[in-house]
C-alpha cells in the first residue's frame, strides 16, 4: 500500500490567487494511497524542501507529489530533495498547477476543481511508480562545433583551451563568417579584420582543434556524451597537403567574372578562389559550377600552372564519421534579400544597396579599398539616405521582430561616411533608435551631435530614380507628419537579419527545435539561453536570434563552458526512462512472441534479439532485447507491441492506465 505525500505550492500568489490551495490539499488528503497532504508558500525554497524531507522520514512516505510549477522547471530540485531523504528520486513527480492551471484560468470553482483533478490524476500514476536507478554512460570528450563565424571560433578556442578536442565544421571555404566582411565595428570602431584574423589563425594552429572547411553536417545520431556525426567534406578539387597557397592558379584562371559572395556581389572572383586574402585556411577551392573544365571539359590551366601539382579534378565528396560528446551549433544568420520591397527599388537601381554591401564599400579590403563609391558609376556619393527597419518590424511583407543590430550599424555607417566624406550629407529614416548596450547610446548621440548625421523619424514609402538621382519619399512624423523628399546619390537599406536558409533542415537533422522564423530555440529564454531542448547540443551566436558581436561572443563562451562542464565528468548519469522486455519463469521466459514490430518502430535501433537456450544450449525462444545504452525512452515500441511484452520505465502501461482512470473517475 502506497503512502504518498502531496505538497501543494502557493508560488507566492502565482497559484494561490486563482486556486484554493487549502481545498486542494484537503481533497488530496482524502485520496486512497495518500498518507499526508499540505500546502506551503514556496515549495522550492529551503524550508519548503526541508518540509518534504521531514515528512518522508516522519511518515515513511513511499511517494511524493509536489503540485506546483512545471516539472520542466523544478522536477530535478524535488527529486534531489527526496533522494537526500532516502526516497528513490523517481518516486517523486510534479503536478503542474501553475503553467497548466492557475496561469491559464481565472479564479473560479472550476479552476480549483481542475487543480484537484490534476493532483488526483498524478496520485493514480505515482501509486505505480517503481524505484529506478539512473544509467551511467561514458562521455566522449570531443566537441563538434558547427559554423566558423566569430561564435564558432570563440567556442572552439574556449573548449580547446580547456583541454578538450574540437572539430570545427564550416560550410564555406574559409572561417570568419559575417564578421570578416565588416569594416569597423560599433561601438568602438575598431577594424573588424584586425581583431578577428588573429583568432582565425589561432584556430588553424591550435593543436586541439581540427578544422574542416567546405564541409557540412550530413547526419547526427546518438545522444549526449555519445553522438555520432557524419560530416560531408565537399570536394575542393585540390590536395590540401600539397597546396602551399601560392595563389598562382588564381591569377591564371581565365574565369574571372563571378560575383564574389564575400564582397556581396560588389566585386568579382575567379573559379578557383579563396574568398578573401586573410582566409583560413588560405588554400583555394574550385567552384565546380563556374569552372570551365567542369562545365565543358576544357581548360585545366590551374593544373598546368600549379607548381606543386595540387589540383585534383577527380576529387569526390568525402563522408567522415566522428564520435563526439557535445555539439555547439554556431551557424549564424543571414540578411534578408530586400527585393520583395519593390518600393525601395533594390535590384532595380544599382545604388540602392544593403547594409552588408555598405560594409564592403567601407572596408579597407573591399572592392573600393575603403573609399565609399557608389556601385553605378564609382562616384563618391554626396548624399546618402539610410533606411532603418527595412524588412524588420514589418509583419506584412517582412519580419515582425526587431533585428536588434541595425540601429547600431546604421549609425556606424553614417558615421564612417561622414568621417570619409566630410562634405557629405547622411540622413537616416528610422522609427525608434534601439541602442541598449554598453556605450551604445553614447555612440548614437555622437553620430547625431558630432558628425551631424540627420535622423528623421518616419518610414520611407518609395525610392525612384530621376535624372541620375534617387528620389526618396519619406516623412517626418515629428513635424506633424510632413512629407519629406530627398534627392540622394545612394540609398542603404538596413535589411532584416534572418535565419540562414538551411537552418530548418539542419535543426531537423539534429532534432533541436526552432522558432517561427527558423532561429534555433534555447531551452529557456532566461535561465537556459545556451542550451537546446536536446541534451548535449548547445547554441552560440546569431543562429539563435539576431545579435551583435559582444553578445555573440558571450554566448559562445557560455556554450563552451557548458561543454567543458559536461566533459569534466567521465560518466554521465542518464534518466532511467528506458524500455524493457518482460521476463518470466520458464517455460514461458517472456510473453514476447518475437515479432520484432518494436524493433522496426524504434528510431534508435535500440532493440536487438536475444536467444533463450536450454541447458543443452539449444535455442528455444527468440525474444526482443533493449540496449539501454541506445534506448532514449520514447516509448514507441510499447505502443507497437500487441502482446504487451515491452514496457517503459517511468511511463509504464500500469502507470498510464491508472493515471487515465484516476483522471476520469472523481
Amino acid at each position, binding site marked *: 500500500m502506497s503512502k504518498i505525500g502531496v505538497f501543494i505550492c502557493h508560488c507566492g500568489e502565482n497559484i494561490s490567487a486563482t486556486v484554493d490551495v487549502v481545498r486542494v490539499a484537503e481533497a488530496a488528503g482524502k485520496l486512497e494511497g495518500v498518507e499526508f497532504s499540505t500546502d506551503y508558500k514556496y515549495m522550492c525554497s529551503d524550508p519548503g524542501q526541508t518540509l518534504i524531507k521531514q515528512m518522508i522520514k516522519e511518515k515513511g512516505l513511499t511517494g511524493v507529489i509536489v503540485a506546483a510549477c*512545471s*516539472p*520542466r522547471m523544478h522536477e530535478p530540485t524535488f527529486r534531489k530533495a527526496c533522494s537526500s531523504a532516502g526516497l528513490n528520486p523517481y518516486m517523486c513527480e510534479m503536478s*503542474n498547477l*501553475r*503553467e*497548466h492551471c492557475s*496561469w*491559464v*484560468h*481565472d479564479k*473560479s470553482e*472550476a*479552476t480549483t*476543481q*481542475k487543480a484537484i*483533478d*490534476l493532483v488526483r*490524476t498524478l496520485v493514480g500514476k505515482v501509486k505505480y511508480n517503481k524505484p529506478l536507478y539512473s544509467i551511467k554512460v561514458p562521455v566522449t570528450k570531443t566537441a563538434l562545433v558547427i559554423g566558423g563565424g566569430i561564435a564558432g571560433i570563440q567556442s572552439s578556442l574556449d573548449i580547446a583551451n580547456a583541454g578538450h578536442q574540437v572539430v570545427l565544421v564550416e560550410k564555406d571555404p574559409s572561417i570568419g563568417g559575417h564578421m570578416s566582411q565588416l569594416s569597423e565595428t560599433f561601438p568602438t570602431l575598431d577594424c573588424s579584420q584586425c581583431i578577428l584574423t588573429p583568432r582565425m589563425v589561432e584556430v588553424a594552429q591550435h593543436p586541439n582543434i581540427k578544422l574542416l572547411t567546405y564541409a557540412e553536417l550530413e547526419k547526427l545520431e546518438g545522444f549526449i556524451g555519445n553522438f555520432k556525426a557524419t560530416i560531408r567534406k565537399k570536394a575542393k578539387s585540390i590536395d590540401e597537403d600539397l597546396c602551399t597557397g601560392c595563389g598562382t592558379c588564381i591569377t591564371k584562371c581565365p574565369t574571372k567574372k563571378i560575383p564574389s559572395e564575400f564582397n556581396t556581389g560588389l566585386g568579382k572572383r575567379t573559379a578557383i578562389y579563396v574568398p578573401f586574402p586573410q582566409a583560413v585556411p588560405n588554400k583555394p577551392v574550385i567552384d565546380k559550377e563556374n569552372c570551365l573544365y567542369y562545365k565543358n571539359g576544357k581548360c585545366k590551366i590551374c593544373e598546368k600552372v600549379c607548381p606543386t601539382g595540387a589540383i585534383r579534378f577527380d576529387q569526390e565528396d568525402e563522408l567522415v564519421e566522428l564520435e563526439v560528446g557535445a555539439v555547439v551549433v554556431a551557424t549564424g544568420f543571414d540578411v534578408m534579400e530586400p527585393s520583395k520591397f519593390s518600393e525601395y527599388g533594390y535590384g532595380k537601381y544599382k545604388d540602392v544597396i544593403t547594409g552588408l554591401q555598405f560594409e564592403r564599400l567601407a572596408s579597407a579590403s573591399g572592392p573600393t579599398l575603403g573609399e565609399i563609391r557608389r556601385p553605378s558609376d564609382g562616384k563618391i556619393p554626396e548624399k546618402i539616405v539610410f533606411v532603418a527597419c527595412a524588412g524588420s518590424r514589418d509583419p506584412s511583407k517582412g519580419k515582425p521582430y526587431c533585428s536588434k543590430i541595425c540601429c547600431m550599424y546604421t549609425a556606424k555607417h553614417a558615421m564612417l561616411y561622414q568621417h570619409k566624406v566630410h562634405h557629405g550629407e547622411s540622413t537616416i529614416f528610422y522609427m525608434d533608435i534601439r541602442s541598449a548596450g554598453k556605450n551604445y547610446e553614447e555612440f548614437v548621440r555622437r553620430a547625431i551631435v558630432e558628425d551631424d548625421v540627420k535622423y528623421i523619424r518616419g518610414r520611407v514609402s518609395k525610392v525612384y530614380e530621376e535624372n541620375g538621382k534617387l528620389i526618396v519619399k519619406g516623412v517626418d512624423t515629428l513635424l506633424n507628419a510632413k512629407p519629406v523628399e530627398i534627392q540622394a546619390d545612394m540609398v542603404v537599406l538596413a535589411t532584416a537579419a534572418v535565419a540562414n536558409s538551411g537552418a530548418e533542415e539542419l*535543426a*531537423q537533422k539534429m*532534432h533541436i*527545435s*526552432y*522558432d*517561427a522564423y527558423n532561429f534555433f*530555440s534555447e531551452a529557456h529564454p532566461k535561465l537556459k539561453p545556451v542550451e537546446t*531542448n*536536446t541534451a548535449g547540443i548547445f547554441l552560440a551566436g546569431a543562429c539563435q536570434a539576431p545579435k551583435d558581436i559582444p553578445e555573440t561572443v558571450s554566448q559562445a563562451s557560455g556554450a563552451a563552458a557548458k561543454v567543458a562542464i559536461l566533459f569534466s565528468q567521465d560518466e554521465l548519469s542518464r534518466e532511467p*526512462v528506458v524500455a524493457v522486455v518482460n521476463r518470466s519463469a520458464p517455460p514461458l521466459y517472456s510473453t514476447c512472441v518475437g515479432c520484432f514490430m518494436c524493433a522496426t*518502430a524504434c*528510431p*534508435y535501433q535500440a532493440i536487438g534479439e536475444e536467444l533463450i537456450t536450454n541447458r543443452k544450449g539449444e535455442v528455444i525462444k527468440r525474444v526482443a532485447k533493449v540496449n539501454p545504452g541506445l534506448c*532514449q*525512452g*520514447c*516509448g*514507441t515500441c*510499447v*505502443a*507497437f507491441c500487441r502482446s504487451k511484452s515491452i514496457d*517503459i520505465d*517511468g*511511463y509504464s*502501461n500500469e502507470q*498510464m*492506465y491508472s*493515471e*487515465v*482512470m484516476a*483522471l*476520469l*473517475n472523481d
Partner: protein
Amino acid sequence: MNEFEPKIVAFVCNWCTYAGADLTGTSRIKYAQNVKIIRFPCTGRIDFMLLLKSFGEGADGIIVSGCHPNDCHYTSGNFHARRRWIMFRGLLDMLGIDVRRIQYSWVSAAEGAKWADVVNTTVTAIRELGPYTDYAKVAGYLEKEANV
C-alpha cells in the same frame, strides 16, 4: 440550466506540446478548464487502446498533440503515431465513436497561443457534439481484446 461541461483528456508529448502548454501559461493566455493534460515522452508512446480506455471511462473528447512532423525529439515517434492514427480511425468507426471527438494536432514548444486555440476549439466542438454516452460498447471491446 447547467451547460454541458465536457471532460477532455489531452495526451501530449513532453518535448513539444507539454512545453508549448507551459508557454501558454508563461504568456498568461487563458483557455477553458475542461482539458487535462497527461504527459507522455512522445506521441509515439501513446497506445490507442489507452484512448479507447478513456472513452470507456467517460471522456467526452480527446486531444492528441505532439511535435510537428520532422521536429520529433525522437526522430520519428510522431510519424509512427500518425500512421497508426489512420488505422485507429477505422477502429473508431467500427465502435461507433465520432472521429471528431479526437482532435489530433501539432503544437511546438514555441506555440503557446496555438495550444490555447487547440483547447478552446476542441472544447467548443465537443460541446456541440454533446456528452459521449456509449461507454458500454467500448468497454466490451476492451474486455474482449484483453482476453485474447
